[in-house]
Protein backbone atom coordinates (compact mmCIF):
# COMPACT_ATOMS: atom_id res chain seq x y z
CA UNK A 1 0.00 0.00 0.00
CA UNK A 2 1.14 3.51 -0.75
CA UNK A 3 1.80 5.94 2.06
CA UNK A 4 2.45 9.66 1.94
CA UNK A 5 4.32 11.47 4.65
CA UNK A 6 4.77 15.19 5.11
CA UNK A 7 7.16 17.00 7.39
CA UNK A 8 7.04 18.93 9.59
CA UNK A 9 3.52 18.57 10.92
CA UNK A 10 3.45 22.24 11.86
CA UNK A 11 5.78 25.23 11.77
CA UNK A 12 5.78 28.67 13.29
CA UNK A 13 8.19 30.95 11.44
CA UNK A 14 9.12 34.61 11.35
CA UNK A 15 8.53 36.84 8.35
CA UNK A 16 11.65 36.90 6.21
CA UNK A 17 12.95 33.53 7.38
CA UNK A 18 13.54 30.57 5.04
CA UNK A 19 11.23 27.57 4.76
CA UNK A 20 11.53 24.01 3.60
CA UNK A 21 8.62 21.56 3.60
CA UNK A 22 8.96 17.96 2.58
CA UNK A 23 6.85 15.15 1.21
CA UNK A 24 7.69 11.48 0.68
CA UNK A 25 5.68 8.80 -1.07
CA UNK A 26 6.35 5.15 -0.33
CA UNK A 27 5.08 2.14 -2.19
CA UNK A 28 4.69 3.73 -5.60
CA UNK A 29 7.38 4.25 -8.19
CA UNK A 30 7.33 7.32 -10.42
CA UNK A 31 4.25 8.95 -8.93
CA UNK A 32 2.95 12.26 -10.17
CA UNK A 33 3.38 14.75 -7.34
CA UNK A 34 1.61 17.98 -6.46
CA UNK A 35 1.82 20.80 -3.93
CA UNK A 36 -1.29 22.63 -2.75
CA UNK A 37 -1.89 25.59 -0.47
CA UNK A 38 -5.05 26.05 1.54
CA UNK A 39 -5.64 29.35 3.32
CA UNK A 40 -7.63 29.16 6.53
CA UNK A 41 -11.25 28.86 5.44
CA UNK A 42 -10.14 29.15 1.83
CA UNK A 43 -10.00 27.06 -1.25
CA UNK A 44 -7.32 24.65 -2.39
CA UNK A 45 -4.81 26.22 -4.74
CA UNK A 46 -2.47 23.99 -6.69
CA UNK A 47 1.06 25.37 -6.64
CA UNK A 48 3.34 22.90 -8.45
CA UNK A 49 3.31 19.52 -10.11
CA UNK A 50 6.00 17.07 -11.09
CA UNK A 51 5.90 14.03 -13.33
CA UNK A 52 9.50 12.94 -12.90
CA UNK A 53 12.70 13.51 -10.94
CA UNK A 54 14.22 16.90 -11.53
CA UNK A 55 11.20 18.22 -13.39
CA UNK A 56 8.80 20.63 -11.70
CA UNK A 57 6.18 22.85 -13.29
CA UNK A 58 4.64 25.87 -11.65
CA UNK A 59 0.89 26.47 -11.59
CA UNK A 60 0.90 29.41 -9.20
CA UNK A 61 4.15 30.45 -7.58
CA UNK A 62 3.24 32.66 -4.61
CA UNK A 63 6.98 33.39 -4.14
CA UNK A 64 7.64 29.70 -3.48
CA UNK A 65 9.71 27.13 -5.31
CA UNK A 66 9.61 23.36 -5.52
CA UNK A 67 12.05 20.62 -6.33
CA UNK A 68 11.98 16.87 -6.81
CA UNK A 69 15.42 15.55 -5.86
CA UNK A 70 14.36 11.90 -5.72
CA UNK A 71 11.60 9.83 -7.29
CA UNK A 72 9.72 9.65 -4.00
CA UNK A 73 10.46 13.13 -2.63
CA UNK A 74 8.99 16.56 -3.25
CA UNK A 75 10.25 19.71 -1.53
CA UNK A 76 8.59 23.12 -1.21
CA UNK A 77 10.73 26.04 -0.17
CA UNK A 78 11.33 29.75 -0.05
CA UNK A 79 14.23 31.89 1.08
CA UNK A 80 12.01 34.60 2.54
CA UNK A 81 8.62 33.99 4.09
CA UNK A 82 5.75 36.46 3.84
CA UNK A 83 2.75 36.78 6.15
CA UNK A 84 0.60 35.64 3.24
CA UNK A 85 2.35 32.27 3.22
CA UNK A 86 0.48 31.18 6.33
CA UNK A 87 -1.88 28.29 5.73
CA UNK A 88 -2.09 24.58 5.21
CA UNK A 89 0.26 22.95 2.71
CA UNK A 90 -0.75 19.67 1.19
CA UNK A 91 1.27 17.29 -0.89
CA UNK A 92 -0.62 14.94 -3.18
CA UNK A 93 0.19 12.13 -5.58
CA UNK A 94 -1.58 10.37 -8.39
CA UNK A 95 -0.72 7.02 -9.93
CA UNK A 96 -1.53 7.92 -13.49
CA UNK A 97 -1.19 10.82 -15.75
CA UNK A 98 -4.37 12.11 -17.25
CA UNK A 99 -7.51 14.04 -16.66
CA UNK A 100 -9.30 11.33 -14.72
CA UNK A 101 -6.57 10.47 -12.26
CA UNK A 102 -7.51 10.60 -8.61
CA UNK A 103 -5.17 12.57 -6.39
CA UNK A 104 -4.33 11.28 -2.91
CA UNK A 105 -3.49 13.90 -0.34
CA UNK A 106 -0.97 13.75 2.47
CA UNK A 107 -1.66 14.80 6.07
CA UNK A 108 -0.45 18.36 5.45
CA UNK A 109 1.78 20.89 7.17
CA UNK A 110 0.25 23.82 9.00
CA UNK A 111 2.40 26.94 8.63
CA UNK A 112 2.02 30.07 10.71
CA UNK A 113 4.09 33.09 9.73
CA UNK A 114 4.39 35.81 12.35
Amino acid sequence: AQTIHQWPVAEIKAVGSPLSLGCTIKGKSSPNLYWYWQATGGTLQQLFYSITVGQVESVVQLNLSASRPKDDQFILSTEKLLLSHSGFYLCAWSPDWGNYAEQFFGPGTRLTVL
Partner: protein
Amino acid sequence: GDSVTQTEGLVTLTEGLPVMLNCTYQTIYSNPFLFWYVQHLNESPRLLLKSFTDNKRTEHQGFHATLHKSSSSFHLQKSSAQLSDSALYYCALSDQGGRALIFGTGTTVSVSP
Protein backbone atom coordinates in the same frame (compact mmCIF):
# COMPACT_ATOMS: atom_id res chain seq x y z
CA GLY B 1 -9.53 30.17 -18.12
CA ASP B 2 -11.13 27.20 -16.43
CA SER B 3 -13.09 27.87 -13.25
CA VAL B 4 -15.42 26.20 -10.76
CA THR B 5 -18.18 27.93 -8.83
CA GLN B 6 -19.75 26.71 -5.62
CA THR B 7 -22.45 29.12 -4.59
CA GLU B 8 -23.02 28.01 -1.00
CA GLY B 9 -20.34 28.74 1.52
CA LEU B 10 -22.19 27.10 4.39
CA VAL B 11 -25.08 24.66 4.45
CA THR B 12 -26.68 23.82 7.78
CA LEU B 13 -29.30 21.15 8.07
CA THR B 14 -30.87 18.61 10.36
CA GLU B 15 -29.98 14.96 10.26
CA GLY B 16 -32.22 12.98 7.92
CA LEU B 17 -32.91 15.84 5.54
CA PRO B 18 -31.66 15.83 1.95
CA VAL B 19 -28.51 17.64 0.91
CA MET B 20 -27.71 19.32 -2.39
CA LEU B 21 -24.51 21.19 -3.05
CA ASN B 22 -24.24 23.23 -6.21
CA CYS B 23 -21.30 23.12 -8.58
CA THR B 24 -21.00 24.78 -11.96
CA TYR B 25 -17.92 25.06 -14.09
CA GLN B 26 -16.50 26.93 -17.04
CA THR B 27 -14.16 25.42 -19.57
CA ILE B 28 -13.62 25.73 -23.29
CA TYR B 29 -13.12 22.01 -23.62
CA SER B 30 -15.96 19.74 -24.65
CA ASN B 31 -14.95 16.80 -22.41
CA PRO B 32 -14.56 18.06 -18.87
CA PHE B 33 -13.56 15.84 -15.93
CA LEU B 34 -15.31 16.70 -12.67
CA PHE B 35 -14.60 15.61 -9.11
CA TRP B 36 -16.04 16.01 -5.62
CA TYR B 37 -13.57 15.92 -2.75
CA VAL B 38 -14.52 15.87 0.94
CA GLN B 39 -12.39 17.16 3.80
CA HIS B 40 -13.35 16.36 7.37
CA LEU B 41 -12.07 18.51 10.21
CA ASN B 42 -8.34 18.11 10.75
CA GLU B 43 -8.06 15.70 7.87
CA SER B 44 -6.88 15.89 4.28
CA PRO B 45 -9.20 16.01 1.29
CA ARG B 46 -10.17 12.68 -0.22
CA LEU B 47 -12.01 11.83 -3.40
CA LEU B 48 -15.74 11.29 -2.99
CA LEU B 49 -16.72 10.74 -6.61
CA LYS B 50 -15.83 11.70 -10.16
CA SER B 51 -17.30 11.73 -13.64
CA PHE B 52 -16.67 12.59 -17.23
CA THR B 53 -19.77 11.01 -18.77
CA ASP B 54 -22.60 13.32 -19.70
CA ASN B 55 -25.96 12.63 -18.03
CA LYS B 56 -24.74 9.56 -16.16
CA ARG B 57 -25.34 9.35 -12.40
CA THR B 58 -22.28 8.54 -10.31
CA GLU B 59 -22.71 7.23 -6.75
CA HIS B 60 -20.47 6.61 -3.77
CA GLN B 61 -21.09 6.32 -0.04
CA GLY B 62 -24.69 7.45 -0.35
CA PHE B 63 -23.80 10.55 -2.36
CA HIS B 64 -24.54 10.96 -6.03
CA ALA B 65 -23.88 13.47 -8.78
CA THR B 66 -24.64 13.74 -12.48
CA LEU B 67 -22.54 15.66 -14.95
CA HIS B 68 -24.74 17.82 -17.16
CA LYS B 69 -22.71 19.38 -19.93
CA SER B 70 -25.72 21.31 -21.20
CA SER B 71 -25.82 23.33 -17.98
CA SER B 72 -22.13 22.92 -17.03
CA SER B 73 -23.16 21.49 -13.68
CA PHE B 74 -22.11 18.69 -11.35
CA HIS B 75 -24.27 19.05 -8.24
CA LEU B 76 -23.75 16.74 -5.28
CA GLN B 77 -26.76 15.19 -3.57
CA LYS B 78 -27.65 12.87 -0.75
CA SER B 79 -31.15 11.82 0.18
CA SER B 80 -30.65 11.75 3.95
CA ALA B 81 -27.84 13.60 5.73
CA GLN B 82 -25.96 12.01 8.61
CA LEU B 83 -24.00 13.67 11.38
CA SER B 84 -20.82 12.22 9.90
CA ASP B 85 -21.46 14.14 6.66
CA SER B 86 -20.40 17.35 8.39
CA ALA B 87 -17.34 18.40 6.39
CA LEU B 88 -15.96 20.70 3.73
CA TYR B 89 -16.88 19.68 0.19
CA TYR B 90 -14.93 20.77 -2.85
CA CYS B 91 -15.95 20.51 -6.47
CA ALA B 92 -12.99 20.33 -8.85
CA LEU B 93 -12.32 20.39 -12.57
CA SER B 94 -9.33 18.80 -14.23
CA ASP B 95 -7.57 20.87 -16.83
CA GLN B 96 -7.28 19.20 -20.19
CA GLY B 97 -3.64 18.36 -19.71
CA GLY B 98 -4.43 16.52 -16.51
CA ARG B 99 -1.79 18.55 -14.79
CA ALA B 100 -3.95 20.72 -12.59
CA LEU B 101 -7.11 20.42 -10.58
CA ILE B 102 -9.08 23.63 -10.34
CA PHE B 103 -11.04 23.69 -7.09
CA GLY B 104 -14.12 25.65 -6.19
CA THR B 105 -14.19 27.67 -2.98
CA GLY B 106 -15.77 24.81 -1.08
CA THR B 107 -19.02 24.33 0.81
CA THR B 108 -19.05 23.60 4.51
CA VAL B 109 -21.84 21.26 5.51
CA SER B 110 -22.94 21.21 9.13
CA VAL B 111 -25.43 18.51 10.13
CA SER B 112 -27.10 18.73 13.53
CA PRO B 113 -29.24 16.19 15.41
